[in-house]
């Protein structure tokens, strides 16, 4: 029997696995403008990301292939983040000493722009606080999923994958 990948035992990708299976954009590219990163390492029958991409930056050889993003072609429009049924697409953008992480957020409440939110990593641990810079509400999202861009410390760019809105 073939070895079970760690991520299938644990249910989340480590940054090491992300590099190995997905391949990360260059530092230079990350500074230019937002770039979409698919955290989707498993062959499943699913193609909306490739179908919706306006620049054909998402390559998929067959409907069961894993999506590969051509980071140079990606314009950072976020449509893949909005449509992905697996909520597996994220956008990263390095701005100064901060990183902006764009993620799907199908939980109530949806934060407001400017609001401070708790940052969660891939296993739901609180790793810090960040400020919301953009919100695409559900009504305006192409995939009926609200998406949120949150500003986080640069060193957390590859850890933060969810947020928690805490209001008194």
């Amino acid at each position, binding site marked *: 029997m073939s070895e079970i990948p760690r991520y299938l*035992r644990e249910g989340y990708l480590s940054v090491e696995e992300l590099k190995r299976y997905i391949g990360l954009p260059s530092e230079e590219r990350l500074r230019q403008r937002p770039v979409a990163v698919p955290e989707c390492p498993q062959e499943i029958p699913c193609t909306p990301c490739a179908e919706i991409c306006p620049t054909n930056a998402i390559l998929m050889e067959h409907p069961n292939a894993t999506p590969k993003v051509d980071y140079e072609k990606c314009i950072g429009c976020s449509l893949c983040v909005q449509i992905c049924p*697996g909520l597996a697409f994220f956008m990263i953008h390095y701005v100064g000493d901060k990183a902006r992480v764009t993620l799907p957020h199908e*939980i109530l409440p949806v934060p407001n722009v400017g609001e401070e939110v708790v940052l969660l990593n891939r296993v739901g641990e609180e790793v810090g606080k960040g400020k919301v810079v953009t919100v695409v509400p559900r009504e305006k999202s192409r995939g009926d999923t609200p998406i949120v861009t949150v500003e986080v410390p640069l060193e957390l760019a590859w850890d933060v994958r969810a947020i928690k809105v805490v209001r008194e």
Partner: protein
Amino acid sequence: MRLTEHPILNFEKIRKREVTIYFEGQPIKAYEGETIAMALHAAGIRTLQHSINKHRPRGLFCAIGKCSSCLMKVNGIPNVRTCITLVEDGMQIERQEEKPALPKTTKPPKWKEPQRIEADVVVIGGGPAGMMAAINASEAGARVVLLDENPMLGGQLVKQTHKFFGKREQFAGVRGIKIAEILQEELKKRNVEVFLETSAIMLLQDGEEKLVVGVRKNKELIEFKGKTVVVATGAMERMIPFEGNDLPGVYGAGAIQTLMNTYGVKPGDRVLIVGAGNVGLILAYQLYQAGVKVEAIVEAMPKIGGYFVHAAKVRRLGIPILTRHTILRAEGKEKVERAVVAQLDENWNVIPGTEKVFEVDVIALAVGLRPSIELLHQAGCQIKYVPELGGHVVIRDSRMETTIKGIFVAGDSAGIEEATTAMLEGKIAGIAAALSAGVASPEWLKEIEKAQKELDEFRSGPFGRKVLEGLKKVVIQ
């Protein structure tokens, strides 16, 4: 324990007029359009009956009319399936104790000729497969009638708040609840006659034709006569053996989805999920969305069985997934109060000393489904046990026709897969049934081929492998 705010659903819009039902004499607030079991649950009543011999409390399990754990006495009539019977103002509901007897004071209804409905194609089941069969059969020129025992169309789609996978032309990126609405609209446009709250209790050969005997709202007999029949009766939740598995609060995963996503009723406060297939993973996410705490998902296999992306989605919300773990027992007096789980070794034996106790009031079993084939069995279709497809399934050809000419099958009742494949199979079965009834033109064969190709494509990845192995055993050329 009703939900008000929800990121995906709007229950204020769904809930209709308020009515009062009586549980053992006590008034309970309910809403028109919801089932008895849902209203009772919202009022905190979880024990629906007691077992006859040992008087053990029993509660809801499947919530879609497929098991018998919700049988209650309604207006004096015993054995009413309260999970699919709608509330009515003034209804008297009682728990059944001992062996329930029919009331002596009421007379049985007088025999009268049943209503007879004739069609080219009779579709049994209004889920994704049945609706697609009806839409396509009608499109191909057939007069179609569809019946379903549930009070609403959509089958399991009505509780699927997540977005579907596949291609966009197959509704990928669209939520299941929305797909149910779209298909319902399509049915309406085509004037397909729909009978809800109508259970198909018999499927018979009537010469060259087929006869489906239905019972509407537990009292009215209706005969459906069709040249052909499509059986799309779905599947039933599996149960696994462990101590206390009959306590109220041990639900099939689908029942919890029905409670919270269809009727906006909170299933409980703290949940343990058994099974990390797609159903268990999706359920965990939906519980979090409804504001319910998921303590953990336990999975006996050494790896997550569902799509990884679903697992990642729940992990980042802080929900643990314990692979190689199983449930040992449910504890509690009248209902679930805690769950004891333990780790398994490589030979599936419990490792002593690894027991963990979770304080939960709900245990959700997401351990698989088995096809509902009772009607096909009764009609005499050839059956085979195929574990890859979830259990006993009927032998069929590539156009979904069973070994009895004119009887077709589609969706989970043909083998456990998921909704996208159910819709494609429904399309094939519907068109093939219209062709077999002699009402569709041969050009429709092209549409069948197209759907067959899409099915092949969908099943061509690693997740389709097991299904393809199973299909080799039941599909005849």
